[in-house]
């Protein structure tokens, strides 16, 4: 410690009693594996998003009222544009650094969502969601939902031609709620689209409500990790159920996180210099009644767009009281089912296999056939739906008629995931049997079974009071 820092710390410590807690935190042990970084990547993208977002908020004007743009972008100089669109043109072309920060913000949003989804898949595949971590898993699913909302509202704010189409479809989705849809749509949009308050509303969602919820939920998410500690992969000669093996927060984990956030900042900035992330001057402003030929949402909404595309025409009235329509089933019920399924899975797995006790050591998904089947089935379903969102492009590229492409996707989405799930279920069941194993019902059993394939010898259980957790295997 430098003398100045030591002096500062000592005087604070006298008042706040910091030495003991900071020592405890600095000595916390973090298990090491590259996949544990995914959550950190998401966290640091969020930091970049907040930092750049604050800058953008200074310039953005949440309004659809027409204004005349006067600025250095000749293409639009002197034209009348929606206020929101005009303010982003000005930010991008007339504010020094504006374009850079806007592009970094956009790139960071992609990274944030992608890293969050991959992090969630890691948790799902390896079983990090098992007791006692179910609450944090559910919180994580909520965070991904919030990330989607943040992404969608951010995509909408420029009020360019793609944004307008996206908002229009979102409006129809709200409208599709049986019985209450028109009210709900009006509550969210403040009136009819496009004359309502949609842009001011989305602005409030995007810069206040959703970020506040995300930051709050992320804080609880991290507090829970701190309290419950990390899971870890099976480690040679260590009883991972009772002990964490890894590197201390200071200096190793700190060094890694500091390096990571600098890397992320650097790479996002570099990408912003070279990639024109969502160049709205090419898209043009939203004009009511018009739509571009390539009406496509952001990639993370592809699966919902794909579901809307391939879902067969459906509209029926229930008892003359309410209408159930295709957009409701494909755009609301189906995604709702996927998320509900993911949320319920930890409890299902525990019930089906009669699991007992707490679990801290990660498992290969192939050791738990149900998990392998459910995660592969869900993942392939979402992936196929996402691919269906490119049906028009695929049809154009391949020369297959759009009708045939849609039919191919209908069949693939219906049959593909169940077949894959059944296949991997059978494969992993056989794999277990061929090794003479069963699905372990508690962690001790799992650890001793793992010794069966050589990588991890049987756990060493240390004496209760004076633990010497490491076997003399080295």
């Amino acid at each position, binding site marked *: 410690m430098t003398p100045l820092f030591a002096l500062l710390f000592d005087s604070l410590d006298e008042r706040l009693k910091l030495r*003991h807690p900071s*020592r405890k935190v600095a*000595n*916390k*042990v973090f298990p090491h594996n590259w996949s544990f970084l995914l959550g950190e990547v998401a966290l640091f993208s969020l930091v970049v998003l907040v930092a750049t977002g604050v800058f953008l908020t200074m310039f953005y004007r949440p309004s659809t009222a027409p204004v005349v743009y006067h600025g250095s972008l000749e293409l639009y100089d002197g034209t009348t544009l929606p206020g929101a669109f005009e303010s982003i043109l000005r930010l991008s072309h007339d504010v020094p*650094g504006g374009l*850079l920060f806007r592009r970094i913000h956009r790139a960071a949003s992609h990274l944030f969502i992608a890293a969050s989804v991959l992090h969630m898949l890691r948790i799902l595949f390896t079983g990090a969601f098992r007791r006692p971590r179910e609450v944090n898993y559910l919180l994580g699913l909520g965070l991904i939902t919030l990330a989607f909302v943040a992404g969608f509202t951010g995509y909408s704010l420029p009020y360019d031609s793609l944004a307008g*189409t996206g908002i*229009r*479809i979102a*409006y129809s*989705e709200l*409208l*599709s709620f*049986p019985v*209450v*849809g*028109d*009210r709900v749509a*009006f*509550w969210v949009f*403040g*009136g*009819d689209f*496009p*004359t309502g308050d949609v842009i001011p509303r989305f602005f409030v969602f995007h810069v206040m409500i959703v970020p506040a919820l995300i930051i709050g939920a992320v804080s609880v998410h991290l507090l829970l990790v701190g309290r419950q500690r990390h899971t870890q992969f099976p480690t040679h000669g260590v009883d991972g159920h*009772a*002990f*964490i093996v890894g*590197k*201390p927060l200071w200096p*190793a984990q700190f*060094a890694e996180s500091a*390096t990571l956030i*600098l*890397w992320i900042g*650097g790479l996002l*900035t570099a990408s*912003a*210099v070279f990639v024109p992330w969502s160049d709205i001057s090419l898209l043009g402003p939203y004009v*009511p*009644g*018009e739509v571009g*030929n390539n*009406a496509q949402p952001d990639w993370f909404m592809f699966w919902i767009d794909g579901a*809307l*595309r*391939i879902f*067969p*025409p459906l509209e029926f*009235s229930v008892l003359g*009281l309410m209408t159930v329509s*295709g*957009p409701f089933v*494909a755009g609301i019920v189906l995604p709702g089912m996927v998320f509900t399924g993911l949320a319920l899975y930890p409890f299902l797995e525990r019930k089906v296999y009669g699991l007992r006790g707490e679990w*801290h050591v990660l498992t290969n998904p192939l050791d738990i056939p149900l998990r392998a089947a459910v995660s592969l089935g869900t993942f392939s379903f979402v992936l196929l739906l996402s691919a269906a969102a490119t049906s*028009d492009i695929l049809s154009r590229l391949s020369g297959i008629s759009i*009708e045939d492409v*849609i039919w191919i996707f209908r069949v693939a989405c219906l049959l593909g995931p169940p077949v894959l799930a059944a296949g991997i279920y059978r494969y992993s069941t056989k794999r277990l049997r061929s090794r003479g194993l069963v699905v372990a019902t508690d962690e001790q059993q799992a650890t001793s079974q793992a010794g069966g394939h050589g990588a991890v010898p049987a756990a060493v259980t240390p004496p209760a009071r004076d633990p010497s*957790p490491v076997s003399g295997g080295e």
Partner: protein
Amino acid sequence: MSADGDPKAELRVIARTDPPRSKLNDSIVVLSAGAAALLGVVFAVSLLAGGPMVLYGGALAGGLLLLAVAVRRYFTDRFPDIEAVEPREIPSPDDTDKPLSDVAPLGPRRSLLKRALIAAGGVFGLSLLAPVTSLGPAPGRTFTTTAWARGVRLVTTDGDPVRPGDVAAGGIATIWPEGAIGQERSSVLLLRLSVEPVPPTVLEWVIADFLVAYSKVCTHAGCPVALYRQQDNALFCPCHQSTFNAVAGAVPTFGPAARPLPQLPLGLDEEGYLVALSDFVEPVGPALPRA
């Protein structure tokens, strides 16, 4: 309390590797940190001087990446690599069946009071949701009517009224009710078909044998039905590829839309301009939540 008294605060090292002393590494740290600082200055100066984005953006990116290198090298070269172990927290058993607080309410019949408080809180909380309904006006007839009415002229996006001769054969135009340009729900496609329309097109609403108008709002999820494929007289929605047969009442022939695009009753006024005879007979756009 002494920090050393708490065994959980102690680091239990199981393996330790000290990096070799290396002058080279020290110079890498100094050089990369110095270069990062320099690039930081380049970023600031070129931004202030109105330099190109490639310059200040590149400097910022480069500075951050070099800083990452400096930090990484500093820590790997100057600290021992430590592998440590820590017991997972085991809940101390003596606390488990104690109440959450040592202060309990007095006297009998407390469950009734408790229930009353909880119920009152719940009812009150639900009542506080009422302002949600203020967030938007009541939809009223918004979704069942449009700006079209008897005698309302068809105008282009520029506001010009339209005569039957203005649309060429195989032509298509986006049309609004006069006075409601840009009101999306009222947008209309005016088509001059190349073959004579057949039912379910309402033939009385067809002008000059070939001129027909349909709502432009897709009955699937409300996108503008923007494309017209002349060879098979199909109207095509670019959002989810719903296809409608423009010759036969704009009934959906493929894709997710379940209802035809409503047809606008067309007529002519005394000056020979196209007008609506009434509002749409069926609701336009996506399905409504109540039948």
